[in-house]
């Protein structure tokens, strides 16, 4: 079973889910953006994030978002293998802007390889979800296709993300119910 979600809904859920695993807000924002970016390009961003969060809940080792943002901040792809990281698909949103003008990057993880362009074109097989080393080298840029406007999210994925997201909500108490949102005066008039 899959669910039809708006991209904004998915992005908001992904932000909370990443927060729920203890990631700082700024990294969680990047995770949410990354999920949306992959989804718009027809890939299962939600599934990639759910797998990553499940493996790295409460510990930063092997986090493709941490690695992706570090590369993005540094503004360059270093020589040699990257990682290993979980869900290397989550690297793509951060690698794409690092492609040289009119060039692409070939990204290999395990036995899967895909080509990536600066405009966000992706050609090739989705990368594996497990902990994998990643090799990146220049290649011809693939064409960027039209963007998808909705997300189809697997039920199991949605459950994982929702459970992580739920950790960011404070349990309701009678006191917070009464005071927190500011009620207390009759609103039935």
């Amino acid at each position: 079973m899959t669910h039809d979600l708006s991209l904004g809904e998915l992005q908001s859920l992904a932000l909370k889910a990443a927060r729920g695993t203890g990631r700082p807000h700024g990294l969680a924002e990047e995770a949410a953006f990354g999920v949306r970016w992959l989804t718009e390009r027809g890939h299962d961003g939600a599934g990639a994030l759910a797998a990553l969060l499940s493996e790295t809940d409460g510990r930063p080792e092997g986090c493709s978002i941490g690695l992706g943002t570090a590369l993005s901040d540094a503004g360059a792809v270093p020589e040699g293998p990257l990682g290993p990281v979980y869900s290397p698909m989550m690297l793509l949103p951060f690698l794409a802007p690092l492609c040289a003008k009119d060039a692409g990057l070939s990204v290999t993880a395990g036995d899967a390889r895909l080509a990536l362009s600066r405009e966000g074109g992706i050609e090739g097989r989705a990368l594996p979800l497990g902990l994998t080393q990643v090799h990146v080298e220049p290649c011809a840029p693939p064409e960027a296709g039209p963007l998808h406007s909705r997300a189809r999210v697997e039920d199991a994925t949605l459950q994982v993300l929702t459970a992580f997201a739920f950790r960011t909500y404070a349990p309701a108490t009678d006191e917070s119910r009464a005071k927190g949102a500011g009620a207390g005066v009759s609103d039935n008039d």
Partner: protein
Amino acid sequence: MSVPAQQKVALRDPQVVMNLKRLGAFHQSRLSFMRILLRRMKREGWRVTCAEWAVDATGVGHAVYSAQGPDRTYSLVAFAHDLPPEARSDRVIATAWDTTFTLFDGVPEAADIERLRANVPLQEAGRITERELTLSRANRSVRLWDHVVQRLAAGQQLDLSLVEQVGYLMRTTAVYGSAKFGAADRAQIEARPELRAPFQAEMLTVYLIRAFVMDLVEHMARAQSADAVPLDPDVRRRFGIGNSTGLGMAPFVMNHPRLIHNWIAAREWALAAVRGVRQASEAEAASFRAHARRAEVNAFEWQSEHPIQQAKLAELRGDMAVLLGELAQFDFEAPYPWDRLWRWGEMALRLEGQEQLAALLLEPYGAIVDTAADQMAADESPIRIDGGRDVADLRRLIERVHPQALTVDWDAPEEQARVWYVSAEKLEPRLGERAEGDVEPYAQPLCPARDAAALYAALDGETGPVAGFLLRHPEHRHTVRRLQIAETHAYAEVRDNTIHADMAPIDLLRAKLSFFGATRFDPRSDRWLRITMFQNAPFPKELSEADPDGWCYPVS
């Protein structure tokens, strides 16, 4: 933004504009979203029709109102319910309402209506799709609804004092837009000219809800009696749509820095453009005077029982008297009259009066300022952090954007007294007390000033590029991004402490609601309030003959 030739005046300093007290004194203006919508609908000759009416004599059923513009049609699908009085609550934790709505992209077919009937009445517990742009609900004003039905059924008109006291027959308790509960993403519709300005789908929803509600009340009167009369058109226009808004809207101001910048920059640009006008025509001066008198009437008609708002109303009324006194002897013929008047106002008026003056100065100058509406939308996709910059730049940026935050003793209990968090119950945003303990782990990053000060402290002794710092301190990533936005978006950040013990969330709400075009801002506590939308506005069928801006102040 294009700057006309006469622009000589600098925009106001963001340190002056972006503090809570001033944000809490903002007024609706020509650049408010309701006015942007009605100007377009009139200019383009939109046709609004009741395409379907299937409401029975008990007031239960559905109706469809279609608004046809030059390129596309949008339809309000309205469901009317039989709500037991004990279930009526404006809180977001309510589960049933008198009426529920969605704005459909196009004209719905029977199958769409059935799909929506199974979901829209459930609101947050239902699902809508990319064919829908908004999801909303409204409850009756118990005080007024029964009075209106009974009077009309008896063939009589209304007790106007009661109408004035309330101002609406129904109030919406939420108008959800972009991407919420499955609705279309803004990205899907933002290229359409009619939805490019912010919140146009939401404003159109409320405008059509108002037309539906007035038709519904007349329908209910007719169902009671064959002698029922319709509302007198002049009285009918006095009804707006109420809105109850709680804390949920306040985080929006901090969560959308680029959007907020664009709203405020557009208005500040407009103010500067008018101040830069060298010579005012007689007609422009007369228009300004007339609007000022009407704003004074508004200040007196505007009622609130809340002490914070009563103090603000006293300030506004006092300031309006001072302003009208000045206008009686003001020389409009000497060069740069509006700049002189503005600079006088900065000395002679308090915050309420100054901000009312800022809004009034735009009124005679639609031809100059209305195009600023085109600049109020924002691309909010996350900006890439420029990690190559040196941390020294970041330090200087904090000194420039948040000088006040660097002087605060953040260890003092009152400075960090509050915690913004989201409750597990219907995901309602709430504000708690840090000292009470249990909500701290759920804190949302909604205090840019405190976070900037914390980053500044963490940067002590650091050297090298931002990228290296963030690798060691990912906890500051959100704040670094905000600051890099604020570097080029002067009005993006609230400078005040948004978690101070004395912070009143209603100040944030007023800033946002003024841009909607709300009037009669009426706080019921320091964190929730009621407003009125489209009160005195022409109804859709009257729009072609009416002034799309003239309704925003009462007639003096």
